[in-house]
């Protein structure tokens, strides 16, 4: 049983997909709930068991080969699973938080007609995500990578009657695909240079004595392009806010806790490669920081509760990449871990709010919910404090480590990085507390009809919120980066700066509190002050609300020209005018020539006889001349 444990973990959700998909509609919601939640929970328990095996062993990773996919020449592509401390942590997050969200969904999606379809898709997602984090080779990881993209597409466009929602799913898939092209190229380079796609062997090759014959930075950049797509970094971030069209638990699971962290996982997993790729790491750090900053600025003006959280996710992911870029891989994973807790809690809390508000998502029409839905409020507040980095909650520990290494790491840390990151942290605190205030603490701006129906969510939902809030509170005490130290050493930093650590932490806490205070000040009484500010800075506000018009830019630079070229140049000019045109010209020529020639056939018998005689006479004369 031990050998197949990893395969079991992966296959349990897949079984759920088939059972729910094929039998769910017939066997009813009870069956779907039990299977849909039970199998992920079983996967979680199996993961715990595997974790204990890992810890109880000699420290080497668990390795299981399922089967050989293809053998071409000297190269074997195998479907194998690899369980070391990093995969253990990721799998525990995926199955643990995943199971919680499945349970939450039983409450949230209770009245949806496509209940069975929802759970089968959710299970499918879990299957692919586990492939991603448990895969031993880039190939298996890629299978999972694309698979979660598929699940994301299906779940974002879940309510496909609405064409806008369906379009959001398509946008996610296409944007991810662009990143995947980079992933593929990086994979090909690695394969060409090293001859294997297994993570452990790739890392060993790059950290070993003989450097592989390919630029680590080039590979690193290509793989990072893939990560950009999956983890919604600039310039491929545009799909994540639109992905909020899907059901809220989907946003929590896929677009907060698990799928979007796949990019972070990939870079962290290949830390051996990235340690040899300083240029690529620099790019990652800058892109991550830029994304964090810009997404935070957009979040400040968003009015949809889920959109605020979406941009917040993009911003937090940017922080994670910043950490990766300066070599603090363990710290980035630490933030993945804490972020999973508080962001899931926030999204599910938002779901609870939406549930209570009968579908309303605009925070301008909320307010005063603290007393009406207290459990939601408290858990949401705890998670907000966590993301703002207030001690001793989880976010405080992870964000502070990131800021510290952004400042001090010898692999690219600088005061400039730290300053921008700190300012972003300030904005994070600001917009999150703005959200908290406008949703819960300000006087009510609710529509009376909606207000009448406000009610706390069922225990299946609030129970999960409580669990996640507790984890957001105490989760930070488990220092993931220490746990991962054996496989991901912390970057070196100038010890002369060590004395600055405590002051920096203090500054970080102060920034969090300043953000809190600013939000409280501006939004305390409602929207009035904010609206005055908005009018004073209307230009900036328009820019931010328009998300810097990136979508419009892409449409103008990529979308429309592609269509125009395809239609005008390729279709009309190329195919119709040139190719078919020359064809029709040829056939026309043949037909006209035939028409002319056929005039010989006059239908007059005499004429034919004359021609025959002339022919005979002519040939006789010719033979006589040349005979």
């Amino acid at each position, binding site marked *: 049983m031990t050998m197949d444990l990893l395969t079991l973990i992966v296959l349990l959700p897949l079984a759920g997909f088939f059972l729910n998909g094929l039998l769910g509609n017939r066997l009813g919601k009870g069956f779907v709930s039990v299977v849909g939640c039970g199998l992920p929970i079983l996967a979680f328990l199996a993961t715990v068991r595997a974790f204990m095996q890992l810890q109880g062993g000699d420290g080497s990773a668990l390795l299981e080969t399922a089967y050989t996919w293809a053998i071409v020449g000297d190269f074997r592509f195998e479907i194998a699973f690899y369980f070391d401390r990093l995969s253990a942590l990721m799998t525990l997050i995926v199955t643990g938080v995943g199971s919680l969200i499945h349970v939450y969904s039983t409450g949230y999606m209770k009245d949806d007609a496509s209940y069975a379809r929802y759970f089968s898709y959710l299970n499918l997602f879990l299957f692919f995500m586990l492939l991603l984090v448990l895969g031993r080779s880039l190939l298996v990881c890629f299978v999972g990578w694309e698979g979660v993209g598929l699940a994301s597409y299906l779940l974002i466009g879940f309510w496909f009657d609405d064409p806008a929602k369906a379009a959001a799913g398509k946008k996610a898939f296409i944007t991810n695909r662009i990143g995947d092209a980079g992933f593929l190229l990086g994979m090909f380079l690695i394969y060409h240079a090293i001859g294997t796609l297994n993570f452990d062997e790739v890392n060993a090759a790059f950290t070993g004595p003989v450097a592989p014959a390919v630029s680590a930075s080039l590979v690193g950049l290509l793989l990072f392009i893939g990560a950009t797509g999956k983890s919604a970094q600039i310039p491929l971030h545009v799909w994540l806010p639109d992905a909020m069209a899907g059901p809220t638990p989907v946003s929590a699971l896929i677009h907060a806790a698990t799928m979007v962290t796949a990019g972070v996982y990939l870079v962290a997993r290949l830390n051996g490669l990235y340690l040899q790729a300083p240029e690529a790491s620099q790019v990652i750090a800058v892109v991550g920081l830029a994304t964090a900053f810009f997404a935070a600025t957009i979040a400040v003006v968003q009015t949809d509760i889920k959109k605020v959280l979406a941009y917040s996710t993009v911003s937090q992911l940017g922080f994670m990449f910043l950490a990766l870029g300066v070599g603090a891989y363990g710290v980035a994973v630490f933030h993945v871990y804490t972020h999973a807790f508080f962001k899931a809690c926030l999204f599910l809390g938002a779901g609870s709010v939406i549930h209570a508000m009968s579908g309303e998502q605009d925070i301008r029409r909320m307010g005063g919910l603290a007393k009406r839905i207290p459990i939601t409020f408290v858990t949401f507040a705890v998670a907000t404090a966590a993301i703002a980095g207030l001690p001793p909650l989880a976010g405080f520990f992870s964000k502070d480590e990131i800021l510290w290494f952004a400042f001090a790491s010898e692999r690219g840390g600088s005061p400039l990085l730290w300053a921008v990151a700190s300012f972003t942290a300030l904005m994070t605190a600001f917009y999150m507390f703005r959200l908290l205030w406008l949703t819960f603490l300000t006087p009510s701006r609710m529509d009376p009809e909606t207000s009448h129906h406000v009610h706390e969510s069922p225990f299946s939902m609030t129970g999960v919120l409580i669990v996640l809030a507790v984890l957001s509170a105490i989760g930070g005490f488990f220092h993931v980066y220490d746990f991962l130290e054996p496989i991901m050493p912390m970057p070196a930093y100038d010890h002369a700066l060590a004395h600055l650590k405590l002051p920096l932490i203090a500054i970080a806490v102060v920034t969090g509190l300043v953000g809190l205070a600013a939000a409280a000040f501006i939004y305390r009484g409602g929207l009035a002050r904010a609206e005055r500010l908005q009018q004073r800075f209307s230009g900036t506000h328009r820019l931010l609300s328009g998300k810097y018009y990136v979508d419009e830019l892409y449409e103008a630079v990529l979308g429309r020209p592609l269509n125009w070229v395809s239609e005008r140049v390729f279709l009309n000019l190329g195919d119709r005018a040139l190719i078919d045109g020359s064809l029709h010209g040829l056939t026309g020529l043949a037909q006209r020539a035939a028409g002319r020639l*056929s*005039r010989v*056939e*006059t*239908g*007059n*018998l*005499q004429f034919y*006889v*004359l021609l025959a*005689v002339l022919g005979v006479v002519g040939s006789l004369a010719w033979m006589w001349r040349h005979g």
Partner: protein
Amino acid sequence: MDRTQLLLMLSIALFSLGLVGVMIRRNALVMLMCMELMLNGVVLSLVTFAERTATLSGAVLVFLVFVVAAAEIAIAIPIVLLLSRQRRTLDVGAWSELKG
């Protein structure tokens, strides 16, 4: 001019008359008759040469030609008859559907 040459000239004359007749006349039966004339011109030349070379092959060929000509006429005249019933004329210009 000796006998052979005279006979050959007669045979050429017959053949040419027949040929010109086929080319010029429009009446189907007359065209057939002219074709017979051409055949007979050829036959005459065959007989002439047979006599000249004192072999029998020419004469045998004459009989062959006669038989084939007879068979051909036996088929051609009914065809012309059937065709003429369709168009009620013996003018070959009446059939030009294969034009163009």
